[in-house]
């Protein structure tokens, strides 16, 4: 009865219905300092708020709230996660498209949005946006372009207009000194992969409604899995431009649009070829495969006479120095040891000098760097002269020539000389000198077994003729050491150089 009375008394008011109100994509209150929970942190008249509203409305209407991940940039919109009640990530300056790439690939059913300003996207993040667009990542990028660095106080941006003043172009941007404004939408539309690229402006009512349609379209295309979508939004920055909000909005239309023409630069279906697809394996299958190889290659029951053995191998690049280190590390692994291999080489792949450090240990290895190696394998004279002094007292040097240089004395190490290159050459290829050296090492120090060496070589060398050569080289190295020991030609503790 009472209700009837009310309706009769206020017949006008009860017939209004809400047509536009705050989107439920925004939090009811923002996680800001106490008395600012109701307002965004943007300046009065800032374009970010409008851009936020357009995105929120589109997501709400498309019912995508629960599957959206928003990547916030660095810039004024760094706090976008204060406002959007969606999944949020805030990333390093300019890297939003890279982070969005990872998110989208890991969660292909999610809607991933990179929201970026012009300093973020067009300066520090130029590489990220270009490559994400070029790969056709199925993300939506909203690029809010206000032609200036807002958050940091008005420095010149890549998008600053010719003649526009900023704190770092106080007389106006001069193309002869600072270049021309970057036109990101045009640049990206020269790429093959993007499906949708449009530039819109928040300059007046009509353009705002066009922007609304563009934002919605980009999100619809992403929802449908179409591909890379990019909407550039020309946006006012009243505070930094030194204009009131109404003037600033007009300035977007009068100054920015002539320099950044509004257009749909790309709107077409793109099929990105999916050729040469590698066989699909799960992570479990890959890991299990590796484990199987390791289990089968494991050599059990061998005891080692050392707790920790550091081997430094040095020579010219191309002599198989690094490969020899890898083979030794692999062998140690198969014999149940902890191993490390650390290469060091110059930019020359051939004929520069190279060395590597191999650690074999029964305990965990603290550092892969050897300052006092127990064993030095020196493939040439330069390496010997360079590293001989580092050898640990009582250590072993295996030198790849027939005898030590006359002027070199190595008092504190056992030195073994073996003309590895000559031996390898006689076998058929000087390339296997490193395997000759390995044979010498195994015979001299007995650190690892030659059976393990052959297993590793069988796994690594697919060419049967080469494998046979390696087997011969390994034997030859061992026999030479054995033989020279037998005839008493091995060095004394003070070396070979008398």
């Amino acid at each position: 009865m009472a209700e009837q009375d009310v309706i009769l008394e206020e017949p006008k008011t009860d017939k209004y219905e809400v047509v536009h109100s705050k989107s439920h994509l925004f939090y009811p209150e923002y996680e800001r300092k106490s008395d600012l929970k109701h307002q965004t942190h943007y300046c009065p008249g800032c374009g970010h708020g409008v851009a936020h509203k357009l995105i929120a409305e589109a997501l709400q209407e498309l019912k995508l709230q629960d599957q959206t991940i928003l990547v916030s940039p660095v810039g004024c919109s760094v706090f976008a996660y204060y406002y959007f009640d969606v999944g949020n990530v805030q990333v390093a300056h300019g890297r939003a498209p890279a982070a969005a790439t990872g998110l989208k690939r890991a969660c292909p059913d999610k809607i991933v949005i990179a929201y970026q300003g012009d300093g973020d996207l067009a300066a520090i993040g130029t590489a990220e946006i270009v490559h994400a667009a070029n790969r056709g990542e199925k993300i939506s990028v909203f690029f809010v372009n206000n032609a200036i660095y807002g958050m940091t106080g008005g420095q010149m941006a890549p998008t600053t207009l010719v003649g526009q003043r900023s704190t770092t172009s106080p007389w106006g941007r001069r193309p002869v000194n600072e270049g021309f404004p970057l036109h990101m939408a045009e640049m990206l539309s020269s790429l093959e992969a993007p499906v949708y690229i449009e530039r819109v402006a928040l300059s007046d009512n009509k353009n705002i409604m066009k922007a609304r349609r563009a934002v919605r379209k980009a999100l619809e295309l992403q929802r449908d899995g179409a591909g890379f979508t990019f909407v550039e939004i020309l946006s006012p920055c009243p505070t930094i431009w030194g204009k009131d909000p109404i003037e600033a909005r007009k300035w977007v239309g009068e100054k920015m649009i002539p320099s950044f023409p509004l257009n749909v630069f790309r709107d077409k279906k793109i099929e990105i070829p999916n050729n040469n697809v590698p066989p699909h394996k799960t992570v479990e299958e890959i890991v299990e495969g590796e484990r199987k190889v390791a289990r089968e290659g494991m050599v059990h029951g061998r005891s080692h006479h050392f707790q920790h053995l550091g081997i430094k191998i040095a020579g010219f690049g191309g002599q198989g120095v690094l490969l020899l280190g890898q083979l030794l590390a692999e062998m140690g692994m198969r014999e149940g040891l902890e191993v490390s291999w650390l290469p060091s080489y110059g930019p020359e792949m051939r004929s520069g000098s190279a060395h590597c450090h191999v650690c074999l240990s029964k305990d965990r290895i603290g550092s892969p760097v050897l300052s006092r190696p127990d064993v030095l394998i020196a493939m040439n004279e330069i390496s010997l002269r360079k590293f001989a002094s580092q050898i640990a007292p009582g250590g072993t040097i295996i030198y790849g020539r027939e005898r030590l240089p006359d002027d070199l004395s190595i008092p504190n190490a056992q030195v073994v000389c073996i003309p590895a290159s000559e031996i390898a050459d006689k076998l058929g290829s000087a390339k296997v000198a490193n395997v000759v050296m390995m044979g010498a090492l195994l015979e001299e120090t007995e650190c690892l077994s030659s059976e393990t060496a052959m297993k590793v070589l069988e796994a690594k060398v697919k060419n049967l003729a080469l494998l046979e050569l390696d087997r011969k080289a390994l034997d030859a190295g061992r026999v030479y050491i054995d033989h020279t020991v037998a005839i008493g030609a091995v060095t004394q503790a003070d070396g070979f150089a008398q």
Partner: protein
Amino acid sequence: MAGPARGKVAVDVEECKGCGLCVESCPPKCLELSPELSHYGVHPARYTGHDCTGCGICFYCCPEPGAITVFRLAAPPKAAPVPVPAGGEHAPAL
């Protein structure tokens, strides 16, 4: 013109920053900045009370997510007045 305006606007003074974009954008010019200051020290926008068409332009021009709510006059019921059930799901919201 007789009868109520087709629309109306409510401005949340807690959110309004007084930028004036809605006043500038409103096609029938039915918004104005209030002469009084809000507790943020700005002149918030307000509805003059006349001529709103409920077009929603002000909503899209306003940078604050919830500062403006736009209402539109509901379409008149086609048939004769429908009796409101007791308990009133159409109880006045305003």
